[in-house]
């Protein structure tokens, strides 16, 4: 991690940041806090055994999803990997449907069929939530391809982690995106660790992942995720570049996660030091950094902050109450949402045997 410095005056004066009103600055803080409080509640109840599987927390990275989602203009599409709660909330999914999904309930965003790694909201231009490392990257290409095919003036935002860059399909996808001039921004959220393996132990060139884009004739840049003005300016410029030139851009955002790869990652204090985690929390936390910035600008007061935070905590607690009170999915739902034709009881869906067992 490079040492943090406050956003430079220059970046804060970029047109996109000059247009950033006080209300929107507060709104961004609110979104970041909502994500953090949601996940802290999720962690509490995960540890109580209320959830299955894995829980990959986004805590420490919130500025990235919030910054990117704030620039989506109704024509843009977003897709990410398994650390997907932050993106889901940032695009406008409700805490209730997300928490209920974590609890495996019928009221979950995927009716309890996807879990933590698989949140989707196509109506909000959010395409998941994908569990296989880098598996979502070519899907992102497809989103961009469809935008261009339909002459829709948007771009695709395709998130991946620093561990994903060493999957072969990423190289294939970067090549195709550039070769075919697809409007897509690849956003590497570099939190330094692919599960328990540090960047130094996973990538031949560890100090810069984004420059791989040069091999595919693609613009790239590296941004510090703790510097919200800089992050915003770069995201905005990159999305605009993709939309207008129909050519891809690759961003690497330096960020950090405080918790393990997932909460099942018992070794996360063995592959990195407690000092490293503390140092990040103290000096680089995106929410703290942004709070300080807003207080310094005179936009935010301690009492406003408290009230925003309280509201976020209450919303998160209410989402747990909603999830706990929600029913489990019916056993019969095991056989729905598999084939569209079957669900719609079309001629095709009623012809031939689609399933080779039943509940008996």
């Amino acid at each position, binding site marked *: 991690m490079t040492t943090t410095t406050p956003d430079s005056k220059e970046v804060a004066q970029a047109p996109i940041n000059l247009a950033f009103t006080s209300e929107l600055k507060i709104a961004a803080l609110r979104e970041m806090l909502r994500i953090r409080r949601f996940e802290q509640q999720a962690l509490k109840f995960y540890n109580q055994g209320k959830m299955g599987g894995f829980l990959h927390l986004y805590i420490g990275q919130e500025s990235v999803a919030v910054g990117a989602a704030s620039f989506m203009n109704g024509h843009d599409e977003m897709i990410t990997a398994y650390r997907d709660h932050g993106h889901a909330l940032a695009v406008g999914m409700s805490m209730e449907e997300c928490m209920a999904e974590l609890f495996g309930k019928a009221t979950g965003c995927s009716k309890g069929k996807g879990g933590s790694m698989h949140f989707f909201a196509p109506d909000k231009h959010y395409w998941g939530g994908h569990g296989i490392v880098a598996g979502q990257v070519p899907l992102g290409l*497809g989103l961009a391809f469809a935008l261009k095919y339909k002459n829709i003036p948007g771009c695709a935002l395709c998130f991946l982690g620093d561990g994903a860059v060493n999957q072969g399909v990423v190289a294939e996808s970067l090549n195709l995106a550039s070769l075919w001039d697809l409007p897509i921004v690849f956003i590497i959220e570099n939190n330094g660790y692919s599960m328990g393996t540090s960047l130094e132990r996973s990538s031949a060139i560890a100090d810069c992942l984004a420059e791989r884009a040069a091999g595919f004739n693609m613009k790239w840049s590296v941004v510090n995720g703790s510097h919200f003005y800089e992050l915003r300016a770069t995201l905005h410029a990159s999305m605009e570049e993709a939309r207008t030139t129909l050519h891809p851009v690759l961003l690497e955002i330096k960020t950090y996660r405080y918790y393990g790869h997932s909460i099942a990652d018992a070794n996360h204090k063995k592959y990195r030091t407690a000092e490293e985690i503390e140092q990040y929390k103290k000096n680089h936390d995106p929410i703290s950094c942004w709070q300080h910035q807003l207080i310094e600008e005179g936009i935010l007061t301690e009492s406003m902050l408290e009230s925003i935070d309280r509201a976020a905590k209450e919303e998160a607690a209410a989402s747990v109450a909603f999830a706990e009170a929600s029913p489990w999915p019916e056993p019969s739902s095991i056989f729905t949402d598999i084939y569209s034709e079957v669900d719609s009881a079309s001629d095709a869906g009623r012809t*031939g045997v689609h*399933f080779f067992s039943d509940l008996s």
Partner: protein
Amino acid sequence: MPLITYRKALNEAFAEELSRDESVFLMGEEVAEYNGAYKVTEGLWERFGSKRVIDTPISEAAFLGLGVGAAMMGLRPVVELMFWSFAYVGFDQIINNAGCVRYMSGGLINVPMVIRGPANGGTSVGATHSHTPENLIANTPGLKVVCPATPYDAKGLMIASIRDNDTVCFMENTLLYGTTGEVPEGSYTIPLGVADCKREGTDISFITYGRAVLTALEAAVILQAEHGISAEVIDLRSIRPLDEEAILNSVAKTHRVVLIDENKPFCGISSQIAATIAEKAFDELDAPILRVTALDAPAIYSMPLEKLQLPTPERIVNKALTLF
């Protein structure tokens, strides 16, 4: 009705759908300017242009995934694999993404895509180019699998597959591309999940699909001529959804059954059919369910030996005779 090749029948299906629906596009290695490695897409790039008929680099995982993403957004990609064997480098995209995204999204997302290409052995190209993954794909609820044997079926099933709102894995056969049959002009569909009785019979049922249908029909002729045994040949046409009713009706009629396919025997398509018959028609059987499949070894290169590896009329006849 015009007599055309299986290859041409598929080509006509693409032309019909490209003309009818703007959201349909073809994509794959050499499908456009080269006219298709097996000429299945011949002339379509010239006619429909580069937006609709698209050459890809050799990046199966990326362009399969691109197809899934585009289909999620409402387009109807028809993605060619030069060989279905090449699907194995893009398996994540087919199984995890095309196969699972609807379920994991609680039904919010459809993937109306066709993935197609030849899936067969018998051409002396060695084990890695000779895979028949219909059983692997059919093992994933969410995906559909179609294996047509004739030009007529190929065209009607392809049009139905392109119009289907789920992902259809369409498995052709390089040894069938040059075969001919009567095919209507214009558009028609054959529903997925409906088998076709290719030959009526009374003494034994051959349940089969793909090129093995032709082999089974040859065996049926020999059985009738040399042994006076009347064999019925049921062509499944689609593997998933499956026409179980047609299978069970035929077994109830003949009481003897041999399952024939070019898939490997272990957890192959024939295993599933055998389980179905054993579970649902046990009392109809006068003899054990037998199978003739590809010999259970990687596809061998050597020409005369490879011919032995796939079902032959002789193997089918011999197997059938053990039941009488």
